[in-house]
């Protein structure tokens, strides 16, 4: 099923990269056609986007020095330096970071945030 209107950026995530590698292997071994791999990735784009929208309850708070920001083609890019990233609600045990005793906050030297419009309309 072709799925129009979804970002392809999640293909560069770890799970997306692994899927692409697996599809490459299947094509190289002649087990699937390239067109099927494309369909799989289009479905992946759709599923990741919808699952992230509907089924994630976690919230990320970022605090740090805003080094660079830009807005181009409906995409915001922020580079935040010396930042603390707080993840809330990863699971029931870690609501408000209580279950996560030692790592309330993740310290990051440099964080790049790419924010796209969730209602894509290209």
């Amino acid at each position, binding site marked *: 099923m*072709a799925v129009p209107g979804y970002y392809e950026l999640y293909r560069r995530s770890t799970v997306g990269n692994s899927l692409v590698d697996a599809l*490459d292997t299947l*094509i190289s071994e002649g087990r699937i056609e390239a067109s099927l791999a494309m369909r799989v990735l289009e479905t992946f784009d759709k599923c990741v986007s919808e699952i992230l929208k509907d089924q994630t309850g976690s919230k990320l708070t970022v605090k740090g020095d805003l080094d660079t920001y830009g807005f181009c083609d409906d995409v915001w890019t922020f580079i935040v330096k010396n930042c603390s990233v707080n993840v*809330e609600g990863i699971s029931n045990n870690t*609501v*408000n970071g*209580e279950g996560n005793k030692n790592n309330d906050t993740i310290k990051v030297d440099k964080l790049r945030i790419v924010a796209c419009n969730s209602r894509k309309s290209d």
Partner: protein
Amino acid sequence: MSSIEDVVALIDALYSRQHSSQLGVNEIQSKLQEIQKSSDGLPLANELLSNPLYSSNVRYFGALTLTVQSNLESAKLNRHELLRINLLHLTMLAHRYVENPSQCAGNYITIKKLMSNLSLLFHDINEAETDSLVTETAGLIAEWWNPINTLVQLLSQGNQIEEWTHIDEQSRDGLIMQSLNAQLPYQDLITFISSNPRYNQLLLTFTEIIVEDLTKLQTRRHSTPRINEIVHKHLYITTMSLLNVNLTSTPVDQIDDTIFKTVTAWVTYVSLTRSGNISMDLSELFQNLINLMYQSNDDTDSFNVAERIISIWSYIFSNDTTLMNYELREQIEATFLGVTRSGNADVSKNQWLLQYMNHLVTNEMITELKELSICIVDFLQISSLDLCNKLFTKTANNEAIIQQYIKVLLQLTNFPLLPVLQESFSIRMVDFWLDLADSYLNLPNEALAPNAINVAVDIFQQVINIYLPKISLLNKQKIIEDGNDETLIHEFEDFRSAVTDLSQSLWSILGNEHLTNILISGIGSNDASGIVTNGTDFSSYYQIEAMCSLLNKLLVDMDLSISPWIVNILTKNPFFIQNILLLFKTGLTMDQQNPNNGPLKLDFIRSSSNLIGSTCGYFNRDPKELNSCIETLFQGLETCTAKNTANKNNNVPEKIKEIDDKFEVIVIKTIATVCDVCRKQLPNYLVHFFNVFNNLLQYESNVSQFTRGKLARCIGYIIECQYELGPETQAKYIVQFLDMINGYVDTCLSSDPSSITSQQVDYIHTMLECISEFGSSMINNNEEENEQLLQQLPHYQQFWAADPSGCRTRVMGLIEKILTNSIYSTNSSFIEVACLLLGKTLILKEVEPHFLKFSMADIIQFVLKHLNEHNYVSSLPFFVYLLEKLVSHYKDNLSANEFDYLFKEIFLKYYSQYIASDPDLLQSMINFIISVLDVKPSLVVNSSEWMNFILPTFVKLLPSNEKFTIFAVTKFWTKVVNNRKYTQQDLQLTRQQIIMIGSELVYQTMFGLYNTQRSDLNSYTDLLRALVAKFPIETKAWLIETLPKICNNPTVHEKFINKLFITRGSRAAGNVILTWWLDVTSLPSY
């Protein structure tokens, strides 16, 4: 396969639940798939669909075979045949269905499949790039305008259709071709669907299936393939006629669900395909839907039609609002709110909505009510900017109407039922108010109306006042009592969290004056100790808890130590701290055995503790209530230990244990925050802290490792801030701390080795962790205080360099005592914590004194000694961590020879035995070399192992199969080729070395690149870029020499080399490399 009967038998066997066939399902499937794909597929499908004696499963399989044939490469050539067969069988089956719906109901699924096949053909025929001359000569079909018209033309043949099986193929084919692009006047269409409701149903289903399939086949949103133009000119007109006739002429209680499915499919399709050239207006359709919605009521259809129409509005408002024009939206606004921003539209229709809501509430239709709330709030969010302008800017007019509008919105927010459990309006409205607040904050000052601030404050204060009771735990209690549904509880918590976020945004408008001060006053203006609870009813505290929860969000980022405002406002609210502590104590006393109380108890403790943590900076200005605060928190900790003991002795449910664990973490974290922030106020408490710590350190004490570590940290904070007493006094306390730990370790180690439990191992580990936490807390990052310390700095430096009290000896002795014990020496987590301790101060500057500042010799001696004695594989990463810090800290004291010695002893000796076969260890070793290249490259490039081992070995690792190795080794080579830390001599030396091995380096890099996975390509990009930038001429020659050895594709190689050398930027280089990789591997570009 010998005959059609065999195929039919196989199909029946496939679909029957009890397989009588000797073949398994997979075998049957693969046999049938083989036939479907073969050249026999078309005649087989034709036969299966023609014979009325076959079962409906067999007929469906026939339609499915046509789908398979349509998707084959050869389908282009058979398109005409496929179209003919599909249309023929669709017409015949549809005719039989209309004539005898009950008997032929089983055919409906086959009819839908044939319709789907035709929609694919409709797409392919109109999208095919064909030469009109070729098409004409070959008799191919160039265009197919309107499948609905075609079907109507064919079905209009009536009973003659049954004769089709008897007439010759050519005449039948001619009949079908004639009907293909025949025009159908509007009146004929209406007459046709009026003749039999089944015709109407079939046509609606067909148009629904066509646009659903076209939606799936769109490759890009708003693109304009030819098919959309054809749909616009033909199918759209027919479908709108069909839909509008259905919506206007069918009584509301007889309306079929098919029509709403068709409308939904069309709305989705039109939304997706809208562009400048193609605009399929749906206004008439929407107007008819609105009219139909008003006809739906309790008596006619129990609002069933209304529900379906509301879900269509929901889709439009959440996805593509502009599908609906302004006039129609105004009608919806009047219906939803009973008032419009323009003051036009007929607001009496709001009565219909109130009746609908009443129906939903009376019948407890919570899901439908939630749907409606989502629809209304999505609708409101469309115009939040316009509303904001009308409310707050100088262009505002019709003030009375807008005030009325806001009143309605506030009433909607204050929907008179329980949030989550019974209503969702208040929950959804959070987003709306957030949008409105954002819009207001983005208005430029010069655009604001003179009274805008007052209007904003008035509205948003009302919003806060509405939400405070909505987020009260009273509602959570009711959810728990209603059935303790975890999902609903989480939903309520999400709602609370959204409201606290909203309050944070509203603070920018309301400020301290209208928000923070009001909340503080709400909590602390009256003495809450008079509130009586009977042990089960805590409702009087719920409002205080809700305010604490919001206030915490506002104060969490404020530094109250330097704020005079907090002193003033708390002076005016003398019961503030006392009431928070009372909330905490009430939480402590709640009976947890009552299953409904557990979560509420945790909320009480969480809200009060968090607020204590956020406000404790105030105690630096006015410490008089610090004492009661500390006492209450320790009382909480004591309750935790008592509860843990009780839990251990009794068979307590896991859920209660989990709550108690969280409770302990919250309390100890708050104590640590208070000690950190108010350390200067706490020296008098040191003895008390030592006593508590001493109690909690005991093996029998039932507290978590986390709590012990945090308490060690608390003691460290208090000792650290007493720097004016001199290092001797601090050393006295540190020795007391270390001796206490040492004593407990000795007691534990002296127990019988044969009966050591995992708890004892964890306990010993905790002891070392406590020292680590204590050491961390003795590092003060406060620059201002360091200036005061500066005066005493020389004394501190001398003191800790000599360490007369033997603190370091004590720590090292303790580590050795544990690591040399046979029970603990096998556990690498002890190496981890020991490395953490020894490396603790390696991040500090040379001049900064600290009791854990071990010398380079001490650390090296420790590493070399224990490397041999412990499990090398599991311990190496921790030693590498320590060594990286050591090299970074003592880089100026280390020589290349010393580095050589370390490298040989720590890595080379074990390379062939352990490292070479373990990607994790390889990564650790490479990363260590990279870290040295980062801080002082001359140490490694002048090492004797550089040319003997490092370069020759690492070049062979480039074509590795392991992601981690590839990542590390390409980073290493990139750093070798391009390193800003090189001295002039380093640079010259490494350039010569690279030129010597360049050909091999490039070969291994390109060989690795050729064989790697797509996700690892980027690792090689940086290395190739560095080579091209630093050795352009040489790299070109190396590439020309090596690429033919990897694969024979000279054109691709030449193009790659030419492009690579004129490309600038990482992304462009990445694309060039990706293109080469795709060309040589023949993989597709996704």
